[in-house]
């Protein structure tokens, strides 16, 4: 996952991109494979949850998304994790700038 987190005026803005095919049920059926897409993404800073997102097959392939939160400082580490339909998961850390 690529993560860019910046603090400005007390709010941290994050732009993240997960690498995932986000294969929908329709397309998977046509290809004769199992559908697989990210079902949950979360992020935390200093053990506090800052993103808690349940997702579907309808986010774009290699989904890019932006979110914001308060209560963190420059130098804090943000840890993001996604889980997909097959149970696979990926975790990435990044430092807030």
């Amino acid at each position, binding site marked *: 996952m690529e993560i860019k987190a910046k603090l400005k005026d007390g*709010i941290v*803005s994050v732009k993240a991109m997960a690498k995932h095919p*986000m294969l*929908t*049920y*329709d*397309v998977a059926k*046509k290809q004769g494979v199992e559908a697989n897409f990210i*079902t*949950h993404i*979360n992020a*935390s800073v200093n*053990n*506090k*949850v*800052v*993103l*808690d*997102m*349940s*997702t*579907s*097959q*309808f*986010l*774009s*392939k290699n*989904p*890019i*998304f*932006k*979110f*914001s*939160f*308060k*209560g*963190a400082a420059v130098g804090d580490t943000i*840890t993001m*994790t996604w*889980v997909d*339909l*097959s*149970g696979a*998961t990926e*975790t990435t850390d990044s430092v807030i700038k």
Partner: protein
Amino acid sequence: MERRKFLGFGIFAAAAAFIPANLSAEDYRKTKPDAWTAHTVEDAIAKLYGTNKTIEQGVTLTAPDVAANGGAVPVDFSSEIAAKSVAVFQNANPESAVCVFTLNENSVIDYSIKMKMKQSGTITIVVEGRDGKLYSAKKAINVALGGCEG
């Protein structure tokens, strides 16, 4: 069925590993499974929140009038409402629910996502206020090239 059960354990284990038990981390896919298979927006909202009556104010939704690529439609939304969750729906795909964000005291409702739309349709954002009411905003989008890759 078995795979789903196994999946449940897998996700639970992953969640337990990364999120301490005293933090809120809601997986709406597990707690409200029917919301994700609903075929209409009204049905999906009702399955997720118990009602589909919303007040159309307080939510800002920005999306293009025409999306050249239905595979990656940029949708931005924000709100100042003190809320518990925010959900995104559309009526352009076989199922209506796109994603749900669970909020806490540090959350700022200012999100941007890229989503798929199979054909032209309307995006609906629903904000679940802490006051127990649902607020929403809608936008119709013309999709030039359908984006479910088929």
